[in-house]
């Protein structure tokens, strides 16, 4: 893709990430994001047609563990770390309606 990037809508990305932005912030961050994208765009000058795509930079595969039960956290510690709890559960604002 040698052409310029299509841009990224800060408002849309912020909405997906559940971040509230003011209009001023949107304008500010849109400019900054465009700069970052333009900078990264330089990578497209490289010819990578002979390089196989990879999900990782290092060629390591199959990092596995045995299916053996290890230790879990202490229940009281888990609950102490939660903002709210009830009946051994972590309590959150009602989530049935999306």
């Amino acid at each position, binding site marked *: 893709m040698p052409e310029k990037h299509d841009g990224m809508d800060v408002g849309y990305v912020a909405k*997906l990430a*559940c971040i509230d932005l003011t209009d001023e912030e949107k304008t500010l961050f849109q400019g900054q994001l465009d700069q970052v994208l333009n900078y990264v765009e330089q990578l497209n000058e490289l010819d990578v047609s002979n390089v196989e795509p990879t*999900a*990782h930079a290092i060629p*390591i*595969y*199959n*990092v*596995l*563990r*045995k*299916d*053996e*039960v*290890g*230790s*879990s*956290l202490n*229940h009281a510690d*888990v*609950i102490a770390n939660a903002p*709210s709890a*009830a*009946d*051994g*559960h*972590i*309590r*959150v*604002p*009602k*989530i*049935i309606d*999306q």
Partner: protein
Amino acid sequence: MKYEATIGLETHVMQKTNTKMFCSCKYEYGAEPNTHVCPTCLGYPGALPVMNEKAIELICKAGLLLGCEINPYSKWDRKNYFYPDMSKNYQITQADEPLCLGGQITVEVEGELKTFTLERIHQEENAAKNTHVAGASLVDYNRAGTALMEIVSNPCMSSAADALAYMTAIKQIMQYGGISNCDQEKGQMRSDVNVSVRPVGQKELGAKVEIKNMNSFAFIQDAIEYEIDRQISVLESGGTVVQETRGYNPDRGETFTQRTKENAHDYRYFPEPDLMPVKVSKEQIEQWRSELPEMPAQRRVRYVEELGLPEYDAGVLTASMDVSDWFEETMKHTQNAKAVSNFIMGEMLRLLSEQGLTISESRVTPEKLARIIELIDAKTINTGGGKQIFETIFNEGGDPKEIMEAKGLAQVSDDSALEGWADEAIANNPKPVEEYKAGNPASINFLMGQVMKASRGKANPGAVMQMLKQKLDG
């Protein structure tokens, strides 16, 4: 106008592992909430996932059982969304390089053999369990991060009956293969159903409606039937079917709008940097293939060809794996396959369903049934007596021989006892005796009935017949 439906299923199956997919917390259904959790499955910053070797083996074996190609290279991706049941705010899954590709199963639907094709099976991690109470939701992370695989069919089915046959076959294969217990009440098998409708002859598919997260086969069947009817009536009244996600309300037998396409999620998939890809060698695949257990279809063939059972019996016995295993266990103690089959299909399944039990809970063990059959085959008891003993053990437990004696079920074969009854029958019924002697062999049956009556059903019919013939012919 005539319409046709197109149905595809995404079936989530929880693998039978001891621990979770990416951490060593125990998987245990029904444990106290939030007792099998750790920094990884709670999504604490800095915690790193490590793949469960057994889960990889099980998904690949599931793939082999369903005729998939095992992908020699697969990788992991993050599916991003905000929901409290996924504490990291992303689910680890496989987007473009899943472990299993393609596949198909052939099943019988209403007497017709049909082949349904799969698109893929990918590995992912399960979400936590939510309970909704007044004004709040309660989250139990014990299930979060457990090994969950998703079997994705192609849109290749056209009726609720197709979908039911497909799911039943998947469940059977997963259970026989030791991949999953598929206990739907424990959420170990759940399906999302995609349904669309188009006029017959139209090439492109209609707008797709997804019905999410159903575990009961009966509900899935009802939801599909409702949805097909609903979409047809929308089209017939000149409307357009909206592409959306709907839920199913089993109380009302209806589906309802949950989410339309306009506010559909954008999951922003990207490669999971915390996990290395998986490579599966040809040798490994062959090793796993050699370890695959016998499938129901193979068992059915063996029951018919080697044990001489009718096709019908073979089908009933293999319908669920625990029944089939119980049958096989019994066959270690007896040669009489048909008798075992009759007892299982008759008394056993009837009593289990009446009392809501599973076969593993039956007081009649394979050894005990084999001993009942042995008594029948030796003509010590008749079949009716065998059934009585079976039912007594089923309800109260006990030893077949002791029950036989206690209930006086043993057949009388010894000549001195039979002789008295035979003489009496002959003396009291001169007319049939005369007829028999005059050349009507059927008349002996009346006399036989008299002896059986006198013995209160305990006389051995073979021995009675012999005794009567001896007396009348002699």
